[in-house]
Structure formats: structure tokens, C-alpha cells
């Protein structure tokens, strides 16, 4: 799968869009400029979108609206909000709504690039953890209903005889199920299995 690395710049002023995209590219990043939040959302691909840099004040859909729209779609793409000087209330609102960062206009390149790199790193971390969860979920999908049940009881730190008593089956049967669970989940030991099961719960 592709890494989420594209910097999307959303600004109603095309000069700003072009300039920031160029700045990002000059620093070796992939960047695209969009003239409005609507245009951006139409072309939005959560798999490749590394982060969004958006102006807070735009006619039609504002930066905050865009933030909400992304959230509503379940996208975890970090959003950097650009505000005018002194728009403290707006910045606070953006951060409350879950913005990764906000920068005041006008800003110099290192401020912008530091913020963008931080957001991209965050996006990549979350993409990785998403991918890991997907792998674990794939493994768990191979478990039979009984195996799943036994895995849950193992994670609840029950011993094999306890599980056998609980389910009304022999200890031997539990042992063979347990071995298959460990195999299918590709767990290296009990501790590893517990870790995988917890991550599985997170993704549910």
C-alpha cells in the first residue's frame, strides 16, 4: 500500500496555494493545491493524503467546516489551519475541533515545513498502526468461533483446566484449540497473544 505523503493545500487565494505547494515541493515533499474545500473533498483520497493545510477563512466552506467534513468521513488526516494574525479565538476553535496545528499568517518556510513534517509523521504513524491492525484483524478472521472464544478466555488469564471446565470440554481439546489459536494469530507466546488481542479490540 502507498504511504500517505501528499501535502494538500486548500486556499481560496490561488497565489498562496501555488506558493505553499511549491515550497513543500522544494523541500522534497509531494504537494497539491486546491482552490476550495469543496474541490479538495471531491478529489480526496484518504490513502495518499498525508496532511491538509487549509486557510481558516474562506468563502463557502471554511477551514473549520473542512475539518468537520473530514472527521465526518472518518478520515484521520491531520489538518493544519492557517489563521490571520491575532485570530486567537479562531485558532482555539480549530484546535478544539482537532486540528493538528495552527500557524499565523504570514509565516516563514521553516515554521511551515516543521509543522507539515510533524503532521506527515503523525499521519504515517497512524497509517502504520492502521495497517498493523488490519493484519491482526485478518489473522483473527481465520479463527473459528470456538477458537475465538478460547482466545478471549486465555486473554482473560484463565488456565486450560478452567477453560475446559467453563466450556464443558476436555483439557486436551482446549490444548489443541489453543495451539491452533497461537498458530493462526502468529503469536510468539502468551504475552504476544494478549498484545494482539488488545490491538484487535482497539480496531473494533
Amino acid at each position, binding site marked *: 500500500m502507498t504511504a500517505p505523503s501528499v501535502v494538500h493545500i486548500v486556499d481560496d487565494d490561488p497565489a498562496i496555494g501555488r506558493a505553499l505547494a511549491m515550497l513543500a515541493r522544494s523541500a522534497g515533499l509531494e504537494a497539491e493545491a486546491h482552490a476550495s474545500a469543496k474541490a479538495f473533498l471531491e478529489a480526496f483520497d484518504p490513502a495518499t493524503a498525508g496532511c491538509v493545510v487549509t486557510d481558516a477563512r474562506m468563502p463557502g466552506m471554511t477551514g473549520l467546516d473542512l475539518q468537520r467534513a473530514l472527521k465526518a468521513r472518518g478520515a484521520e488526516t491531520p489538518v493544519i489551519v492557517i489563521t*490571520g494574525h491575532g485570530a486567537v479565538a479562531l485558532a482555539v476553535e480549530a484546535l478544539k475541533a482537532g486540528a493538528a496545528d495552527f500557524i499565523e499568517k504570514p509565516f516563514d518556510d521553516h515554521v511551515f515545513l516543521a509543522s507539515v513534517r510533524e503532521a506527515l509523521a503523525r499521519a504515517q504513524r497512524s497509517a502504520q498502526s492502521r495497517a498493523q491492525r488490519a493484519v491482526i484483524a485478518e489473522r483473527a478472521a481465520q479463527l473459528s468461533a470456538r477458537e475465538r472464544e478460547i482466545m478471549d478466555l486465555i486473554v482473560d488469564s484463565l488456565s486450560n483446566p478452567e477453560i475446559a471446565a467453563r466450556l464443558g470440554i476436555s483439557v486436551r481439546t482446549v490444548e489443541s484449540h489453543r495451539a491452533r489459536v497461537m498458530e493462526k494469530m502468529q503469536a510468539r507466546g502468551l504475552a504476544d497473544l494478549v498484545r494482539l488481542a488488545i490491538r484487535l479490540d482497539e480496531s473494533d
Partner: protein
Amino acid sequence: MRLDNSHANRLAGGITTPDGRSGAAAALADAFSDLMTSTLNQTQPGFARLWREPRRLWLWALFFITYGALDRASALFLPGVVALTPWDLAGGLAFGFLIVEGPGAAWFVALADLATDFLAPGQHSSLLAMTLAALVTGISYGLASAWLRRLGAVRLADLRALVSLALAAALAALAHVSADLAALGRWSLFADRAWAPAIVSAWTGAFVGILIVAPLFALPRSGPKPTATRDAVEAGLAGLVIVAVMALSLSGAPGDRFRYFYLLFLPQIWIAVRFGVVGAVFGNLIVQIGLVAFFLGGLGPRDAVFDYQFRFMALVATILFLGCAVTERRVMEGALRERQEELARVARLSLAGEMAAALAHQLNQPLMAAMAFTRSAQRLLRAEAGPQAEGASQAMDEAVAQADRAAAIVRSLRDFIGRSAPERAAIAIEPLAREAAQLVGPECVRRGVRIALLLDHGLPAALADAVQVQQVLINLIGNAVEALEHAPRPRVIEVRARRLSELHLEVEVRDSGPGVAPEIEARLFEPFATSKPRGMGLGLAVCRGLVEAQGGRLWLAENRPGACSFAFTLPIARGGPRPKPAAT
């Protein structure tokens, strides 16, 4: 402008006595006992103050002497008949003295009255009778002044104060002349059934005396006054005309006595209209002095003096009321003008702030782009090596620094002109809305627009800057009035306010106009978007900025032909003064 009456009542709430015990007698008894208590309470400080402030002692002495002199001047005319004077100027002085010094000085007035009566030549009354009469005078005048001070009507700044003064004077004068007539041996007047005209004559003298002299002690601090040289010349001229007309009206043959009297109204009206209550008081004083001088000089027929005084009462009262009305009106106009100027100033400031903000935004964009482009070029140049690339990179650093400098200038300009932080306090919406409606009132009348205030009862106080909220209201109402210019009648503006949630209240300004055009609607709150031929398009942008500065929102709530509505929210003041529950 007409305010919707039913809603005005809703706002005011019903006024009834707390325990439902209606009855003028009970209320009167309560008022009287209150008055007596306060009078007695004030006696002590009045007396004690005298010793603490020696200068006051001189004032009291001056009053004592002037009182005696005026009493003698009045009594000169009818020697021996102490109570019957056509101009009780001494009584007026006592009334004014008590208004200034408080009812605590009433005992001193009684003392002065007793002394002058006692020293009057040709008096035949007993000391007891004179003491009684003096006590009644002191107490009745003292009560009158106590009542006026309680009402806060010690300055003739409005008609309410004047009506209170006239009422208090009429009652006090009645008590005073009745006591004098009864106590000072004028029983013979009762015997030949002449007591009624005697009381009327004496009462007229006492009443006019108060109306002439007491207002001198109750002149308002504000209102029209002859302060400039030109005004002083005009006032002097009016005084001369008054004297001339007096001479003309008094010098006629006995049959013509009153023929020219009514001409006195003309210069008196002149002076009252120009200089308000101050002009009226001094005009009246001139007329009275002229009258006294005329009769004392033996020029006038003495039998006519009461006839004159009776007519004179009508003149004095009329002119005083006119002067008071003029003063009240001018003071109100002045206050309204000040308010309008303040609002205009605030509007100008926020307009300048919004323009600076818009300008800063517009300039920041290209500066920002220039900086980013330059930095991009610099980064791309890093791959190249050599002195030329280094020089170019340095030049780019300089370019960015200059763009940054320009941005800093724009920023400081904006900060300098920008809005000051709002002074937020717990404010009631109702008086703000009412005042805003009043300020737009004349415009509404001209355009046949009716404003209705539909504010929910028990609306909580908002936490906001009163001036800024009012500016928003005036702006929205003003827009509504303009929107109704070509609308079909009835042209109605409704100002509504209600509690939205625990945290916010909502104010709505709705008009029956054609609504906002769709092509404007999208950019309605952007600076420089307007549908008005002479508008800057900053009004709504300013309003939104002001409301957001209070922590509220402003939006177009409804937009269709016949119903266009703008609404804004304000945070509710927590822990602030809550409106009292309505009296039941």
C-alpha cells in the same frame, strides 16, 4: 415610531401593591409617617452641622436677616395685617432655604417667622398665637421640603419636579395662611364672612411667593442658560422689554388696568423658550420686583394689588411650566445627541478597525505568497554550489526580510486602529433594544415603519459590551428600515429576544421587506459586499465581528420576501443580576 402597547405592558409588568391593600388613605398614612420619621432624623444632623461648619452659620444668619427684610417689605403694604400679604417673598425664601438645607432647618424657619412677626410694627397678637402660627409655618414648609427631597425633586430639571414643587408649595401655603389667619387674630374676617376671599388672597400671595423665590434655590445644573455674551445681551434685552411692558400695563387708567397685562406673556415666553427654567425664574423675578416697586412707590392703586397678584399667579405658573418643559426637552435632546455621537464614534472606530483588518488580510496574502515563492527558489538553489548561488541566496534572505517588514507594518497598523477589547459586563437587553428603537425612531416615522419590541419576560442578562451590542442592534434595525423603503405596507420591524439555552440568549431583528438578494447572500458578511448604492459594505462585517468578539454568532436566520431576519446570540451572564420575578 410607535411601540406596540401590549408588549410594552408585558415588559413593564403589572404594578400593584404588594399585599393588595389598596386604599389611598393607607398609602397616605404610610407616606406621612415615613415623612415624619425622615424629618425628625434630619433635624439632628442639620443642627449638628451648624456647629461643625462655621460658614453655614453665616448662611443661616444671612437667611434670618433677608427673611426679616422681605417680610417687612411685604408687610409695609398692609401694616399690621401680618398674614395678609400679596407677595409672601419671605415665605418663598424660607421654602428655598429648606430645600437646600433640608427639613432639619425647619425650627430655624419657625424661629425667624416668630421673630419677624414679633418685631412687626402694629402687631396685636399674643406670643402664644404667634408661636403657634410660626410652628405651623415651619412644620408645613419643612414637610414640603422633606417630601421634595425624598422624591429627588430638588432641581427643576423636568416637569415632574416642577409639578411636585407646585403641589408641595400649594399645600404648605394653605397650611401657612390658614394658621396665620386663625392664630393672628383675624377672626373678624370670619365674622363678616370674608374668610374665603381672605384665605384665597393670602394663599395666592404665599403660593406666588414660593413660585418666585424657591426656584432660585432649585435651578437645574444642565439645560439652556445664557452663558455666551450674545445670550447675556439677549437675556438683558428680554428683561428690559419685560420692564417696559410692566410700565405700560400698570400706568393705564383704572379702567385699563389689565388691558396690557397679557402683553407680559410675550417677553416672558421669549425668555423661557430661549433660556428654559433659568430664564423663566429670572423673568418672573423681574416682573415681581417691578410689581412690588410699583405698588410700594405708591404709583399703583392699592385696592388693585390682589387682582394683579391673582393674574400674576397665572403668568408665573405658566412661564415656569414652559421654562421647565423647554429645559427638560433640551436636556433630553442633549443626552440623545451625546448618545448618538458616542455611537457614531464607536461605529467609526469599528469601521476603521474592520477596514484595517480587511486591508491587513488583503495585503498579507500577496506578501505571504512572495515569501513562500522566494523561499522555494532558495531551497531549489541549494543544489547549486558556488559564490553566485550564495549571493542569490543572500538576496533572497533580504527579500523575505523586506516582505516580513511590510507584513509587520500592516500588522501594527491593524493593532493600532483595531477594536479595543470589549468591556463585558452583565447587561439587560430590554433597555438597549428600547433605546436603539428610539434612536432609529425619527427615521421610522418618516418612512411609515412600525417597530415592535417582542422581548421574552424574565430574559436573563447578557455578558457583553453594552455599547457594541447596541451598535449591532442599531445597525440591524437601520438596515431593516432601509430594506423597507419600497416595501408594501404595513412595514413592520420586530425585535425579538429569547433564551436559547442555559448558556446563550438570542436576539432577532426581523423585517417585512423583500429580503436579501441571492447574489448578495453568499458574500453577505464579507467586507465590501453591499447592495446599497452608497454603502461601503462593512456594516454586517462589523456587526459579525462585534458579536463574535462577545462570544456570540450572527447569521441570516430567514430570507424570503416578506420576512427577512438576522439573529445573533450572546452569552448569558452567569452569577450576574437576575431579573426579578414579576410582581403578582
